[in-house]
């Protein structure tokens, strides 16, 4: 099988305290440069990971373990301090759906804008538009400004655009809790369908039952390091113990 995502020894440091003002820098100088002006911490520490095409991987770990940071490196939003990330084919993130939505535009305009942001061409959006609206169950409200939508409608439309982008690699961050239960089931079914169609999935979620249902492989992160890489059931049972 070919590799879809190749992560080689990446590290990422974040600065904890940002001192930007001349005043603070001056005080620090006068006090004889005591202490570090900015503390650093390792969000990712020498992480390597290979994901084959068609695999579905769950990134698991407690809050702050580096899951989302790793996902951001795979999508290209962040660049590593050291190490390399390479991907094959188009990568699209269901990272916080609706990030590209503008409240003052209609649902229709937002579908086009968000689709384009996620890398779709005009032709693709034209072709898929009806399917996107159908899936979201927005119906006649598609020409209403998005700010008048209920939060459920908003998320449904955003999710619908995202699943229609049809990339080779899907990055899913904590968004499976979308809308009411029937719609949630529909979303999960859609994600399973994508997995079955041979798409590569990388999922970040704290919902262990759901993750065990959707993914085959589990990767456990702790303090920016991979501590376990095994079939998802084993990783989930370790987390539960």
């Amino acid at each position: 099988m070919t590799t879809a995502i190749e992560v080689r020894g990446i590290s990422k440091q974040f600065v904890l305290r940002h001192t930007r003002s001349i005043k603070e820098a001056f005080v620090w100088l006068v006090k004889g440069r005591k202490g570090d002006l900015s503390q650093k911490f390792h969000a990712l520490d020498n992480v390597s990971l290979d994901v084959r095409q068609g695999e579905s991987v769950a990134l698991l770990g407690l809050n702050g373990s580096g899951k989302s940071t790793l996902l951001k490196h795979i999508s290209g939003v962040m660049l590593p301090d050291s190490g390399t990330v390479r991907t094959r084919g188009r990568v699209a993130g269901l990272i916080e759906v609706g990030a590209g939505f503008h409240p003052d535009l209609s649902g229709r305009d937002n579908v086009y804008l968000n689709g384009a942001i996620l890398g779709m061409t005009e032709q693709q959006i034209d072709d898929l538009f009806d399917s996107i609206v159908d899936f979201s169950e927005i119906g006649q409200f598609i020409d209403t400004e998005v700010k008048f939508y209920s939060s459920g409608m908003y998320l449904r439309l955003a999710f619908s655009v995202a699943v229609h982008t049809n990339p080779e690699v899907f990055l899913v961050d904590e968004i499976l809790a979308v809308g009411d239960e029937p719609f949630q089931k529909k979303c999960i079914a859609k994600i399973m369908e994508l997995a079955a169609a041979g798409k590569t999935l990388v999922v970040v979620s704290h919902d262990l039952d759901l993750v065990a249902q959707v993914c085959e492989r589990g990767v456990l992160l702790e303090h920016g390091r991979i501590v376990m890489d095994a079939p998802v059931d084993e990783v989930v049972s370790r987390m539960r113990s």
Partner: protein
Amino acid sequence: MSTSELTTPGLGGGLRDVLRSRFLLKLLVAKELKVRYRGSVLGILWSYVKPGVQFFVFWFALGVFLQMNRNTENYAIYLFSGIVLINFFNEALGNASRSVVGNGGLIKKIYLPRELFPVASVWVSAVHFLPQLLVLLVACLFAGWTPGVFQIFAAVAGFMIVALLATGLGLFFGAANVYFRDSENFVDMLLMIATWASPVLYTWIMVRDGLATVFSAGTASVLLVIYQANPLTIAVELFHFAFWLPTTSEITDPMIAAPPNLLDMWLPIGLATALLVTILGQWTFRRLEGRFAQEL
């Protein structure tokens, strides 16, 4: 399955990527235009009202009270042709400098060519510039303006200089603004200077004569060259050449109405400077954009 190669995500091709994502650029511009005057009664009319009022304020203060009308033939057209261009620059650079921070929510979550945001800001300003240009054209036609090839060429060149300059500086200050919010305040100051450091409200002859009375002949000529090398000065003079000069009669001496060597020397210098600023802005932007997501 897929035969494509492994590629490194997050490394863009700079402004070339913007060309590739023309559709997204179009949508971003359309979004800005729709959102700009939302909920206002006058709507897009504000794009006419604001420069109109600004024009009358300047015309009364400078033309009538300071008697610029007497020294300069068709001073209203002289003034307006400079104002529209400087307004374009001010709006483009002001918005481009804020565009990266303003779209921080998106930049933090999804990878897309980030140059799109400053470029879209400049584009939106160009769309707002059009109605003002239209008003200028109508006024010029009433004043007996007949355009020639050189005039149209000069106008296009002037516009290009300002657009490139605003893009380059917008990329630079937009990226710097992510790290230091001082950047947008600095730009506000710069824009205030820009209006007065180019011959919008006064004529270049006044600069030449003014410098000559304060400084020695040698210093004055050096300072005048520096003043004229400012790409905004060149662009504004090109607009005067294109729109105001053809409306003047024989009272205005053509030798002093436009600075010497405007088309054959200053125009290429202005375009080259603006292009250089764009390249430098792009270069800085690419060096800084790697850490946008964590700094925003």
